[in-house]
């Protein structure tokens, strides 16, 4: 991508940390603050939380890397792990497996993509894009 100014660089978090999600929120909110306003910052912070929570629950990765990059009026976040992306169909009238997190993540950003880690090619990357309204 051309002319991408690094807003905050990459932060690495141990997946076992009890404060991982709160730490990521502080980092992303601070890095996005020069480029976005509320409620966009909150939206992005929620989407990143969901992406990280999914990595914690399902990937089995030891660490999670969060990168913040600014592109003029937009902020792009990538959440990377070293694991395998596990996808399950929602259980009818289910509870934990109802994909609410994925839906919320998608609803909060302008664009997103998921590059799923597989057994042969581990490492999932979730990319989130939020632009100033």
């Amino acid at each position, binding site marked *: 991508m051309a002319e991408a100014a690094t807003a905050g660089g990459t932060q690495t978090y141990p997946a076992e940390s009890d404060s991982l999600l*709160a730490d990521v929120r502080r980092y992303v909110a601070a890095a996005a603050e020069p480029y976005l306003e509320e409620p966009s910052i909150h939206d992005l912070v929620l989407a990143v939380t969901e992406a990280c929570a999914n990595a914690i629950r399902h990937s089995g990765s030891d660490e999670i890397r969060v990168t913040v990059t600014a592109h003029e009026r937009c902020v792009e976040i990538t959440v990377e792990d070293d694991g395998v992306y596990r996808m399950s169909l929602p259980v009818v009238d289910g509870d934990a497996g109802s994909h609410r997190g994925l839906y*919320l993540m998608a609803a909060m950003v302008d664009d997103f993509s998921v590059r799923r880690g597989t057994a042969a090619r581990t490492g999932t990357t979730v990319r989130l894009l939020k632009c100033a309204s």
Partner: protein
Amino acid sequence: MADDAFQVELSDDLDGARLTGELDLLVYEKADVALSPLFDAPGDVILDVSGLTFVDSSGIRLFVRLERAIRDRGVLHLRGASPHIERVFQVAGLPDLGIVIADGHDG
């Protein structure tokens, strides 16, 4: 940040609670344990969420479970949500489940 640590304060009558701080996956079990007495409430349950500064899909899941537990006896009310939090409740479809969302002016 200590100021944002998730806390639950149950009402004396065990028909509601005040939630403060950030509710996410990593405090889900703590929240579940703290709110467990409310799952047996005899009627409506009122949660004061005016002190909640963040909620993710884990929090939504907890409210959905609580609503399911009390559905035959009463209604779950979420009161005093900030604009951000209320929007998350709306996007997640909580009103469609019969959960009553009231803003700070009604709480």
